[in-house]
Each structure stands twice: as C-alpha cells, then as structure tokens.
C-alpha cells in the first residue's frame, strides 16, 4: 500500500470517528482513541474499514507523563501494513473497556496486560492473572515496581564495573534468595488463592442432563504442568462428561522468565541473546523480528549479503521447527519417538550449520542491527547447498510417504479440532493454524519485510482447519522454504555483512516501532519503545505460541480428552515463548 493511500485512509477514518486524534509525538504513529470510544472504534474499523485482525494488544507505562497506554495493532487479512491505535488512561486509575467480547483474540493479551502492567479491562469475562499467580504482589512491568534483585534501572550496572568484583545479588538479600515480601506481611495468615481460582473457571458442578441414556457426573481433570503431552510446563484443566471435554481452561506461566522486564533493563544489543530463548526451536527468526523492530527505529538497513543470509537462516529455522512440530505431533498421537527420530536426524544436520555459523546449536545470537554477527565460514555454503538441494527434499518425501496416508493418523486427525476461518480470525490465530483454516495470510507475502518480496513462493493454505490440515500445511511450508532456499542459494551475493561499524552501544532515537516476521509458528512481533536512552523503555513480544492458545478452548470442546492432547500438539506451542 502506498503512502498516499494510507494518508487518504487516515483522513477517512478521522471523518468517520471525529473523536480520535493523531498521535503527534515524535517517532510515534497511529491514532489516540478516547477510552469510552474504543469499542465503537475497534468494531467500526473491523466492519467498515476491513481491519478484521486484531493482532496485538499491550500496555505501556509512561511514568513521567503519569499515564498508561494500551496499544492495539490491527491488520487486514487481505494484506497491508498495520494500523496502530492507542488508549491513554491516567496512571492512578487505569481502566479501559475490554475488547474481548468483540475480539476473543484479545482475551489472553488483555489478561497479560492486567497481570504485568496493571491495566484493568472492564467487561473482560475472566480477568485473572495469567503469567504470574493469583496473589502476586504488584504489577511487575510498572516502571516503579522493583524486583527483589533490583540493582539499577538500566544496564550496564555500575556495581559490576569498574571495581572488578562481581557482587552477587543474593548476598544483598536477607533471604539469600530471589524473594521479597510486602511490609507487615504475615505468612501464617496467608491463604493461597491460586488453585481455587484455576478450578473455579471450569469447576461448575451443575449436573448437565446427558443426551445419552447413561447419566454421568462431570469430573474435572488436571493435565500438567508436568505431563509428557503438554510440550513442557503447560497446564490444562478440563471438565469431562465421560471422555468428552465440556470445558477447558489453559493455565500458563510456569515458565515465565520475565523476558520483558529484563529486556527493559538491558541495552538494545543485550536483548538479542535473550530473544534466542523465547522460542528455543527458532532462535534465528526471533533475532530477525527483534532486529527488524530496532532497525525501524534506527532507520538503518543491512547490506545485501546480510539480507540473503537472514532469509537463509530464517527459512532453515522454519524447516527445523516444522520437522520438530511434526515429530512431536506424532508423539502425541502415540507413534512414540520413531517419527521424531527421523525428524531430529534432519534437524541435527541443520543445527550443524547453525553451530558452524554462530558457534551454538540452539541459541544462535547471529543477527545484529544492520547486519549479521559474522560471515559464513568456509565450506558452510556448500554444506547448505548439498543439504537443501540433494538431501532434504528426499527426506521430506519420505516423511510424506510414511505418514500422510497412514490409516491411524488419518483416523485420529481428520475432522478433529476444527477451527473455522472466521473463528481463526476473531481469535487472532496466526501462522500454520490460521492458514490451515483457509486464510492465506502470510506476512512474507502480505506485508513483506527484508527481501521477501524478491522470492517466488506460494503461500501454503489448506481449508479444513483440522489437525490433519495443520500437519499437511507444515509439510507444504517446508517445501516452500526449500523453494526459497534454492533461490537464495542461486542469488547469494558477495559483499559486506554489516552496514557501518559493528557497535556495542547503538543509538536509538525516541519513538515506537513494531517489527513483525512470519515466524514458523506465526506472527512474531516485537513492540519496542525508545526514549533515546541506552535501554528500551518498553519491550513487548507478541508471541504466536501464546496467542494461538486463545482458540484452544474452541478447538478442544466436544472432542475426546485424548484428542485435546493432539490438538495442542497441532498448534505447536513452545513454552519459552508462551510464558516468556
């Protein structure tokens, strides 16, 4: 979409909604909507202007201005750049009408904003803490909230340098542990509320009249956080009628590692290795999204060879992820470990390439602002070439042959866990989940970043929205990635890999930026606010694994409990990213 069209559309919007104003702050874009108009604006935008996909909702605490802001990013599923709109509320009483009744996809994100930033969403049906636990003291992403091991607002900490002696944080804490308690607190009087709150969501024991002849009691079953099928430390609480799931509540936060709080203490460069640990299967794509966001703020671009390297690594990562996803999905179906062994064999070969270029198998830390960390070592390009051109297509065909027409797989997956296109869009599902439901939305095509507009590939799409299609689409996407890689290998130019000199401390002008990539799991977005200091003011990750769990309830209901495990496997979550 060209600039003129955008400007034209903006004035159209202002005409339609006279109460909104443009965000005039330097480096910012979008509109500021008064809190009482937000529901009207968001639904109007969806119904009249085609911005049907509410991608990201997050809160920012502007302490110096004494206000809080909720930032919304909306898109059209037909493609094009984002529309940003914001709601500003006073800091002492941050209440915003909830969008969840109109956009169910905002559900978990609003809960997260309440949990971490402390913005209350009026009208939200289930406004509970999501990443921390019920009873947790304070809202950690408020700028005046300090963690127990607090040292300073921003790194590098003076205490570590230049004295030379490292001070261990636990030595300064009275408990020698990472804990702190409010004043006047008496643990003997404390009653934990967390568990009962979890079960209250599904624990309604009203005796539903069964349609079958046998009348059975409904029971509540807890799955996880230590359960082999939950892909880590995810937890589901389900209410069962017989074996059929009647109600389902995802519980998360068991791997909440304070990515965003630590990210705000870090300098911009220090955050790159932390993004590796978000979705630990795809560290390369995570790096990609983050450096894109910061490059938008800085207004720089990497040189040509670096652009090609980026695409190459991102596509190899996608193959790694989809192989693992297929392997784990088969694990969940009961094909224990054998398909996974085949998938991991190929994964290991790609990890060898990653280790050669970056020095680490999983935590690559390979992208830099306006460039890459280092060039390909000798021989690696040939390694990639022979792997991608000769070996991989054959191996993918093998997987396809052995799995796709397997009778058990077909019986267990076709028609199970159906998510319609409409549901997928309203629940803000992204990536393979959205495309398997028949919405051909791929950011590489819809809103190209980097040099993706140069490559020829098809946006994989399937139409049934069941587990089988979510499996097939991953195979399709691996094949498309191979196609892109072929073109990258053909066109890879020589030249520098870093624009200017590599810098430890980058200067980032004040402003906001949202960088998003089509990660293997879907839209991975980084919302970065800078105030000109060495550390980001706000650093938010729009995590596809987290938001893709919103439709889990819709997909899982009315299927057997054994199917819910497979449905979860077909969404392909990684807990490092879900909980951050």
């Amino acid at each position, binding site marked *: 979409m060209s600039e003129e069209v955008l400007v034209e559309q903006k004035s159209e919007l202002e005409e339609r909604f006279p109460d909104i104003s443009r965000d005039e702050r330097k480096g910012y874009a979008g509109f500021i909507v008064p809190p009482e108009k937000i529901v009207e604006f968001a639904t109007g935008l969806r119904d009249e202007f085609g911005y049907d996909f509410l991608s990201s909702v997050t809160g920012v605490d502007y302490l110096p201005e004494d206000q809080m802001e909720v930032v919304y990013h909306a898109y059209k599923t037909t493609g094009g750049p984002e529309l940003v709109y914001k709601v500003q509320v006073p800091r002492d009483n941050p209440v915003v009408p909830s969008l969840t009744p109109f956009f169910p996809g905002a559900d978990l994100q609003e809960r997260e904003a309440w949990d971490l930033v402390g913005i209350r969403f009026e009208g939200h049906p289930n406004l509970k803490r999501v990443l921390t636990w019920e009873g947790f003291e304070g809202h950690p992403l408020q700028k005046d909230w300090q963690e127990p091991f607090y040292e300073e607002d921003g790194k590098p900490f003076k205490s570590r340098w230049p004295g030379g002696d490292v001070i261990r944080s636990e030595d300064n804490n009275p408990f020698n542990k*990472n804990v702190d308690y409010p004043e006047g607190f008496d643990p*003997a009087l404390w009653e934990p509320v967390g568990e009962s709150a979890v079960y209250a969501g599904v624990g309604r024991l009203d005796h539903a009249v069964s349609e079958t002849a046998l009348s059975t009691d409904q029971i509540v079953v807890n799955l996880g956080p230590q359960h082999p099928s939950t892909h880590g430390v995810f937890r589901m609480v389900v209410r069962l009628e017989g074996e059929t799931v009647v109600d389902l509540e995802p519980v998360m936060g068991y791997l909440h590692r304070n990515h965003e709080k630590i990210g705000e203490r870090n300098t911009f460069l220090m955050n790159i290795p932390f993004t590796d640990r978000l979705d630990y299967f795809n560290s390369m794509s995570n790096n990609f999204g983050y450096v894109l966001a910061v490059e938008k703020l800085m207004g720089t671009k990497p040189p040509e060879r670096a652009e090609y390297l980026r695409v190459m690594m991102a596509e190899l990562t996608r193959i790694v992820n989809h192989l693992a996803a297929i392997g784990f999905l088969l694990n969940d179906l009961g094909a224990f470990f054998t398909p996974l062994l085949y998938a991991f064999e190929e994964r290991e070969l790609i990890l060898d390439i990653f280790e050669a270029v970056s020095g680490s198998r999983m935590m690559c830390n390979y992208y830099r602002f306006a460039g890459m960390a280092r060039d390909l070592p000798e021989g690696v390009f040939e390694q990639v070439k022979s792997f991608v051109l000769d070996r991989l297509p054959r191996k993918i065909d093998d997987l396809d042959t052995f799995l796709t027409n397997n009778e058990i797989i077909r019986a267990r997956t076709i028609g199970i866990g159906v998510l319609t296109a409409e549901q997928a869009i309203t629940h803000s599902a992204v990536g393979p989940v959205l495309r398997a439901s028949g919405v051909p939305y791929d950011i590489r095509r819809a809103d190209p970043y980097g040099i993706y507009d140069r490559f020829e590939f098809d946006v994989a799409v399937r139409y049934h929205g069941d587990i089988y299609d979510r499996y097939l689409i991953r195979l399709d996407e691996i094949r498309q990635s191979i196609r892109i890689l072929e073109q990258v290998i053909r066109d890879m130019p020589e030249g520098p890999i870093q624009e200017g000199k590599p810098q430890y401390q980058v200067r980032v002008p004040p402003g906001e930026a949202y960088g998003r990539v089509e990660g293997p799991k879907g839209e991975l977005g980084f919302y970065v606010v800078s105030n000109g200091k060495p550390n980001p003011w706000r650093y938010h990750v729009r995590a596809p694994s987290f938001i893709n769990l919103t439709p889990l309830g819709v997909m899982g209901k009315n299927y057997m409990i054994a199917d819910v495990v497979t449905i979860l496997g077909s969404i392909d979550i990684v807990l490092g990213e879900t909980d951050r």
Partner: protein
Amino acid sequence: MTDELNSPGYDIPPEMDGQVAITTLDKVYNWSRRNSIWPMMFGLACCGIEMICAATSRFDFSRFGMEVMRPSPRQSDLMIVSGTVTKKMIPQIVRLYNQMPEPKYVLAMGACASGGGPFKEGYSVVDGVDKFIPVDVYVPGCPPTPQALLHGLITLQKKIDMQSIKNVRWYSKDPVEAIPIPVLGPDLMDPREFELIKEYSAEKQVEEGELPVVDEA
C-alpha cells in the same frame, strides 16, 4: 566390566584366576544401579530440547542404560531439572522430588537450574534449584550440548560408584524427611522460613514508618 567388578582388593589365588569372581556387595549393588538410571521425562525449558536430543540416535544415552524415560516420578531414579525453574513451578518440582522413591538423584542441567542463569535477576525465577532440593550433579551451559549432558550423566555414575550401602541415606534408621513444599504468596515462601519472613516484613514496616514507633514517653 568384569574387571571393574572383580577388583575388591583381595588377592585371588592364581589357579582360580578367571574362574571365580570375588567382589563386594557395594560394587554389585552400585554397578547394577548406575547402569539402569531411569530419568524422569520432564522438560522445563530450552535444556529439555537438548535432553531430547541426547536421547535421539545421534547421541543416544541408552548406551548408558538410561533410555527408559518415565513420565511418572514413582518410577524414576533421576530428575533432570532441564531448564529455568520459576517460582510458579518450584512447588511442583519439590512435590515431584518428594514423590520419587529412594534412591533418587537430581541433575541440574544448564545455567538456569544451577543458579538462575541469564534470567536470575528476574522477579519470578528461582536462582538455582538447589535452593530447594539437593542437587548431585551440575551441568553448565546455556543450554549444555548433549555431549555435556552425557558427561554429567557419567559423572553421576561415578558418584553412584562411590556410595556404600553402609551409609546411604535410604537405608539409615531414621526416616527420610520430605522437603516442605514452597507456598506461593505475594512471593515464593519456604515454609521453613515463615518466622523469618514475618520478622522481615515487620521490620520493613517500621523502616517505612507505617507503624507508630514506640517513643520514650
């Protein structure tokens, strides 16, 4: 292997050499235990993926008798704490540890489980699982490579070799106490520290000047 078993420190007469094995009960006991360590199938974070890699064909820890990963703590001997331990997760980990039958071992895999790692400063991360449960082997790395994990497992085997039936804790007369399960309050609370927490909070209150400080009048 037989040489390993067959060296109890007694001299075997030359005519019986190669026909009779003399060993100690400790050696047989440890030899069989160390070659059948069943780890718990329990991945926490990034390190969990490397743990899976260590189980796949390229690294294959079944060569050391460890391929049987059990999802149930009741059937496992070794808890590989593979990843960041958060405050929300530690009650479950302690409970799982208590549920494991003796003899049991804990391997802290990676920087996070050993001491908090890169996320140590975060508000909801436990800075080292050894603050709550006893750890036998630490494996450094972020994440450790599968080779490093294998090295850690072999180190654990060496540790098992050094134990003696005479003084192991699971054959002692006193029952082994279960570790009290931490409680999630405003922050993570260890039940053993309740008094300390109360004192600390009261002191903090005085410092903040919320309670009227008793004056000399």
